[in-house]
């Protein structure tokens, strides 16, 4: 029986951030022309699915939206996230062997707290899909490989404290590209140390360099982690013609990557060379996922010899890989050395910038360090908006794995803040063990439940 690859194609031809923004109606137009002209949807190996609308509850499993979900998402967002959910269902029902949600708007820069749009993203399509799969199909260990040129800082934030989700991102390094993060020493919180792996690459890294990273670091770590599901956060802006970044990856490189990585589900992220890259990269990825020959997919000016790595780059890559291998191998011991892992709380403070909406966010995060489970987190977030207004929220995140003491404690923390909400506009409880999501409005003195 041939491989079956599920495909949701949702180009959102009637949605844009602004008419000339890279994230505009035209983005997947030439991709559509190429895919349709190829007759991709007629292939016996490809099953096309229609996206559905994700529900607010699907979103609340991942995000704390300020002031509420409705204010942060449009119908296009619900359909993009819903497209990923349709494929997740099809995969679990074994209708397909793998699936690619070719959807926009993208999501991998969306963090848990959402005050607005950053990096063209409002809500996180992959995280919504993963939390849905964990809830409805009981999946436990998930690996996300981010192949977008930008650091997937949203994914990193969502899974920073989750030891069961391995997040690996390779990207153009944060010194030369948005969002300015994703350095090799960002390795996860104290309860999930080492399950975040960042591989910052130098500008102009080519097929050869990226595949070296894949073969010698990403694939061995995946093999070691043994996930139930592999997700490709499938950005396409490592391409050599992308206008917003400086890498030298090709359509062939992307196709080969997917052939090796064998993602169960891939979800489109960035990629803004809408004419010179996307039609070819997407065709290549689909053919590779469907187990078909992609050797004839090539950009008009593609010459393989132009995508060899310089010796300096290779030295840098090898050195980086050696370091991350050590970290991965010794992650338990390193975690102990670096930070107390049980008893009391771990705290961190940071600021988050929302480039699209020009919002600054100040965050204080407190993690319960529990000997039995990954604990729970309390986030206090203050959003400073360009209108010179601000909102402060407090969010309690209770993960699937939380032990019964942590569950009770987290719920009572939420209660305490509701009883004494001084300085707060909203209080949230993301209660995954109960799959219940609460939001308390201080001014309205009302609680909403999803």
């Amino acid at each position, binding site marked *: 029986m041939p491989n079956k690859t599920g495909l949701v*194609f*949702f*180009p*959102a*031809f*009637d*949605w844009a951030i602004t*008419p*000339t923004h890279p994230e*505009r*109606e*035209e983005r997947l*137009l*030439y991709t*559509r*022309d*190429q895919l*349709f*002209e*190829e*007759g991709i*949807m*007629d292939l016996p190996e490809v099953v*096309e*699915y*229609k*996206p*559905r*609308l994700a529900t607010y509850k699907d979103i609340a499993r991942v995000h704390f939206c300020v002031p509420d979900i409705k204010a942060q998402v449009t*119908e*296009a967002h619900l*359909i993009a996230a819903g497209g990923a959910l349709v494929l997740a269902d099809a995969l679990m029902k074994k209708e397909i062997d793998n699936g690619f949600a070719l959807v926009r708007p993208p999501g991998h820069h969306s963090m848990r707290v959402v005050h607005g749009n950053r990096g063209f993203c409002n809500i996180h399509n992959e995280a919504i899909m993963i939390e849905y799969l964990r809830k409805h199909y009981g999946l436990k260990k998930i690996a996300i490989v981010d192949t977008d040129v930008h650091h997937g800082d949203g994914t990193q934030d969502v899974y920073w404290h989750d030891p069961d989700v391995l997040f690996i991102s390779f990207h153009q390094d944060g010194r030369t590209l948005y969002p300015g993060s994703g350095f090799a020493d960002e390795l996860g919180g104290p309860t999930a140390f080492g399950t975040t792996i960042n591989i910052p690459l130098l500008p102009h890294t080519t097929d050869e360099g990226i595949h070296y990273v894949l073969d010698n670091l990403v694939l061995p770590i995946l093999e070691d982690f043994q996930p139930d599901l592999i997700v490709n956060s499938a950005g396409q802006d490592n391409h050599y013609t992308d*206008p917003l970044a400086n890498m030298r990856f090709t359509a062939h490189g992307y196709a080969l990557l997917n052939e090796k990585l064998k993602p169960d589900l891939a979800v489109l992220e960035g990629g803004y060379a809408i*004419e010179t890259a996307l*039609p*070819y990269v997407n*065709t290549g990825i689909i*053919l590779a996922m469907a187990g*078909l*020959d992609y*050797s*004839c*997919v*090539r*950009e*008009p000016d593609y010459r393989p010899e132009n995508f060899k790595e310089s010796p300096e780059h290779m030295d840098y890559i090898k050195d980086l890989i050696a370091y991350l291998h050590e970290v991965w191998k010794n992650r338990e011991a390193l975690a102990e050395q670096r930070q107390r892992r049980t008893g009391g709380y771990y705290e961190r403070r940071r600021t988050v910038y929302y480039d699209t909406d020009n919002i600054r966010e100040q965050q204080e995060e407190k993690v319960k360090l529990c000997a039995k489970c990954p604990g729970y987190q309390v986030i206090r977030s203050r959003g400073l908006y360009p209108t010179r207004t601000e909102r402060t929220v407090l969010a309690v995140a209770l993960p699937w794995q939380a032990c019964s003491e942590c569950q009770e404690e987290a719920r009572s923390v939420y209660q305490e803040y509701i009883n004494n909400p001084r300085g707060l506009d909203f209080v949230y409880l993301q209660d995954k063990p109960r799959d219940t999501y609460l939001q308390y409005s201080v001014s309205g003195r009302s609680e909403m439940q999803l």
Partner: protein
Amino acid sequence: MLIGLDVGGTYTDAVLIDHGEVIEKIKIPTKPEGLLESLLSALDPLLQAAGGREIQRIVLSTTLITNLIATNTVDPVALVLIPGPGLNPGSYKFKATQSYILSGAIDYRGREIEPLKENEIKACLEAIKKEGIKRVAIVGKFSQRNNSHEQAVASYFASHAPELQIIMGHQVTGRLNFPRRAVTTLLTLATREKFENFYKQVLQVLKERGITAPLYILKADGGTLPFTQSLTKPVETIFSGPAASTLGVLALTPKGQTSVVLDIGGTTTDLALILSGKPLLASRGAKINNDYTQVRAFATKSVALGGDSILCVKNNSLEILPQREGPAYCLGGPQPTPTDAMRVAALTEIGDERRAYECMKRLGADLNLSPKETADLVLKQMVKKIAQEIDDMFLSWEQEPAYRIWEILQKQKIRPQNVVGIGGAAPAVLPLLGEEMGCRALAPPHAEVANAIGAALAKVNLRLSFHFDTERNFYFIEENGVQEKLPIPILSEDQAKDFCFTRLRQEGQKLGISSDEELELVYSEVFNMVRGWRTTGKLYDICVQFPTGIMENWLEERKDQCAE
């Protein structure tokens, strides 16, 4: 007076219509000798009934193309592909006599990204000549956006081998889908000559009968075309039979409603959908002989369940098998069938009642049921199965991919108001089916010749899908292969629409479509082309049409009869 003729696989049906009324109807078994004989046997009695009064037009629906393809008596064709980057062209399995692949590539905007190689073209022609093939189809990827490669190869072939019949992909269809374009182009050329022969024969016999009425042919999308115009794309006349039936139902049921067209035959039950008065089309084109094509056709579904399906009991439960072994038991056949059950349930008067009882009794023995109870069970199961298939058909329509937010939000759950039965066994189970589905069961008068009525009344339709690229200053029409520089600058969507409507009227006139026929905008989309944060041009995709439908005067005249 109007004449509609449908020469089907089993029956040939014909009607004569005058002022909204069926004057004469004919149903005869199709003659094995040929289409022409069947056509004449049905036509002659109608001409007699017309008694010399003026016949305005004759519309013909035939299985000619279907038969040619099914029996593989199409003409040999060499297929020359210019695929460019993408799928490995070695993986294509087109049913051409010989296939050849040439270098060269055009991209989605119609820009040349790789030139042709003259030595390859030369070698290709030599190979074709060596094989002795006389017909060549040349199809390039994205040739609908730039046909220069197809043209260059064709003109080289024509000048070096003038005896060849050559067709180019962009002339046949411009819809995006290169493999389907290749198949459709191939079939067009492979059937063209035989179709033309048939055409000449029909003209000849009409001439002998002194008929001067214009002759039209019905297409798979339910539109008619002057016979002469159909010569260029004969393959569009495939599956006109189901289209005729659906149009017939459209003519015989109240306007604007949502109906299921149900045709229960001996071996199969055929289904089609009419959504708010519009027959549903197969979304990307018809599947012919297991190949996907770009032939616009109604979405039909054939279920292996008919009046002659075999009944049996397996593991203490009744089963309706998908095959047929002959007529019903009550008609002297070997096995119990739904037709026998209908007889016992007193829903029909076909066949020997005693034999029907006998076989139901035998069937029911293992189930501890009386013959009557057995028959009821058979019918219940049959109706359930058909209702399920209808439901699935609506479901797959709902699940058809959509690429815009509004389309996804707008597509609501729709279920039929009517289930309309045509064909032999339909009237018997209709009431039960209506009950099962919670909708009205209709068996309209003349239902047995609904197909011929549909043919007689079908309007000439015409669809033109435009693609404007204002940056390249070009426009393209999918249906007729037009690729031209824009004669006037297109500055707005309204201007583009006007341009399309004007063009549609001009093309419509050539087909004899009256200028007061209603025009329809199918879709209109605008994309800003932005390069470096500046808008450098616009892409417009606009589709306009004279829609498929039933002649207005019929509807007017039948208003009273259709009143609910």
